[in-house]
């Protein structure tokens, strides 16, 4: 019987199986941010166990509320900063160098095919784009990860989604994943891994694959995952070139992280994208999805472009194509947060920042902030936001607010007209 990519990663990292169906795995990466880590740090200190299992494998960032907005968030940052120094964590990204965790860690080449990754953040599933098993965990799992470098997982069956067809103009990875979540439901992949395969995935760049895997959790998935291929090797090459004699040899090595042809799946789904239209969520659950056409005319108060889902340079380029030479509607405010400093610099060099500023967009530093209603663009009660983020839960971006999730191009078009609309309105 063949194995799935995740079963192979589990086999390669198994430390213990205290009971059938429970797998304690060695971790290659433990990522930390300032919202879920400080309580783990404080607990370790109070237990007299203020240690880390490996300071090279732990990577940390202050990203959720940056700069600090009040004394409490300043304290969270302080705890992280002092801990990183005390424990000699080399890869710690503080303000000025910091970016949204699931954008900056891949950008630094920290995730490799076949890795196991945890973080106290549900969107850790993003890193499956590299052919890694990456899962969000709570603070206790994080604490044990920091201390011992292990984490326990239940057997994860896999749903394989074969994505085929060709995307129409104006339809993006975000539209694909929202449509997949609508099909699976918010509980459709609970305790399961979602494997994205097929010609559309093969044609996607790493940014698009991250957008897909990022939202696996919105269907309840433990992890989203794509097989490593030439695209993965090209992206990682600057970080791995000392480990391999050539790109070919790297690819050959990474090819071991593929599912076997006779692997057993919980479910196999063929997903045809040729007829897909740009979509958006409505309501308070990410599986409530309609076409932009159906929602057209819905007025919005704010547009937010950024986040671990859609704050990468490719996303900014798509938004800029729509906004170039245009002005945002008087009734709308637009907040844009490039996900990392490197993305910000690239956007500056490519002239995108000028396009955004000329259009009337407020540019902010990289931070998670607005996505979870913590800072940087919180909604007032009754306000509506078109957002490129990942969650439209009640109160997510501010108590009493409504969030419509969509692609950067759709969000940019919505910014110009002031109501939800299709980006084709403003593109040639």
């Amino acid at each position, binding site marked *: 019987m063949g194995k799935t990519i995740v079963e192979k990663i589990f086999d390669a990292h198994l430390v213990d199986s*205290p009971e059938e169906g429970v797998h304690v795995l060695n971790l290659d990466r433990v990522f930390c941010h300032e919202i879920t880590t400080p309580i783990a740090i404080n607990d370790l200190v109070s237990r007299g166990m203020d240690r880390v299992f490996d300071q090279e494998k732990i990577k940390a960032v202050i990203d959720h509320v940056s700069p600090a907005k009040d004394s409490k968030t300043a304290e969270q940052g302080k705890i992280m900063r002092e801990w990183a120094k005390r424990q000699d964590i080399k890869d710690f990204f503080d303000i000025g160098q910091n970016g949204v965790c699931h954008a900056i860690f891949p950008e630094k080449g920290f995730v490799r095919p076949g890795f196991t990754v945890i973080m106290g953040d549900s969107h850790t599933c993003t890193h499956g784009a590299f052919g890694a098993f990456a899962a969000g965990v709570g603070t*206790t799992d994080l604490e044990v990860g920091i201390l*011992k470098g292990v984490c326990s997982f239940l057997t994860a069956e896999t749903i394989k989604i074969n994505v085929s067809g060709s995307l129409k103009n104006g339809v993006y990875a975000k539209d694909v994943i929202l449509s997949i979540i609508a099909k699976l439901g918010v509980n459709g992949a609970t305790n399961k891994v979602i494997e994205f395969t097929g010609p559309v995935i093969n044609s996607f760049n790493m940014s698009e694959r991250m957008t897909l895997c990022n939202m696996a959790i919105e269907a309840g998935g433990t992890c989203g995952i794509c097989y490593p291929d030439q695209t993965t090797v090209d992206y990682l090459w600057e970080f791995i070139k000392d480990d391999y004699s050539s790109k070919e040899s790297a690819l050959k090595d990474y090819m071991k992280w593929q599912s076997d042809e006779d692997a057993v799946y919980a479910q196999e789904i063929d997903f045809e994208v040729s007829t897909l239209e740009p979509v958006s969520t409505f309501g308070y659950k990410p599986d409530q999805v309609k076409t932009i056409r159906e929602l057209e005319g819905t007025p919005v108060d704010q547009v937010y472009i950024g986040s671990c889902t859609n704050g990468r340079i490719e996303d900014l380029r798509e938004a800029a194509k729509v906004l170039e030479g245009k002005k945002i509607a008087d009734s709308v405010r637009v907040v844009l947060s490039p996900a990392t400093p490197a993305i910000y610099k690239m956007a500056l060099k490519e002239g995108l920042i000028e396009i955004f500023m000329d259009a009337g967009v407020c540019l902010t530093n990289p931070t998670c902030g607005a996505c*979870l209603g913590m800072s940087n663009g919180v909604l007032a009660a009754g306000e509506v936001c078109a957002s490129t983020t990942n*969650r439209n839960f009640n109160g997510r971006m501010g108590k009493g607010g409504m969030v419509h999730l969509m692609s950067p191009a759709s969000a940019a078009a919505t910014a110009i007209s002031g109501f939800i609309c299709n980006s084709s309105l403003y593109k040639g």
Partner: protein
Amino acid sequence: MSQKKAFNGKVLFLDRCDINTDEIIPAKYLTEITKEALKPNLLEDLIMDGFDPSKDLHGVRVIITRSNFGCGSSREHAPWALEVNDINLVIAENFARIFRQNMYNCGMIAAELSSEEIDSLFKDFSGEEAELTTDLENNTFTISSKSGKSRTLAFSISGFDRTLVAAGGWVAYADSKY
């Protein structure tokens, strides 16, 4: 996390699927660095007809709900907000993975019953004041109402989850073992 926890008492029925962790504890409270600080804000953003957290949570020790409880964010603040309100047991058709793991990691119980059993509990007990007691030796819940109705249901809890509950959580267990 290491004290013995109680899994008995007044039941709150939450008749909704997909209650997410933003509803259990909104993100604006994630700036707290103690669990106790979360106490007044449990279920503050829950959308459910007629639900008023300031009244309906009074004295509650057990929650019975539908499917996919705890979906969304990985925040362990969700089980902690329950824990500091002395709610250590949630019974549902099923749970989101991270929330379920967080519960057992804290030595709390996330127990699954079939949709038929959950349905029948809602039908027979949700309209009146009900108390539940947990027998961890025999794996049973007994629920009884003021009007005299009573029912005993078997539940299953895996050996490893039981070990975590007994050890007082995953940190203590992992530290001794790995």
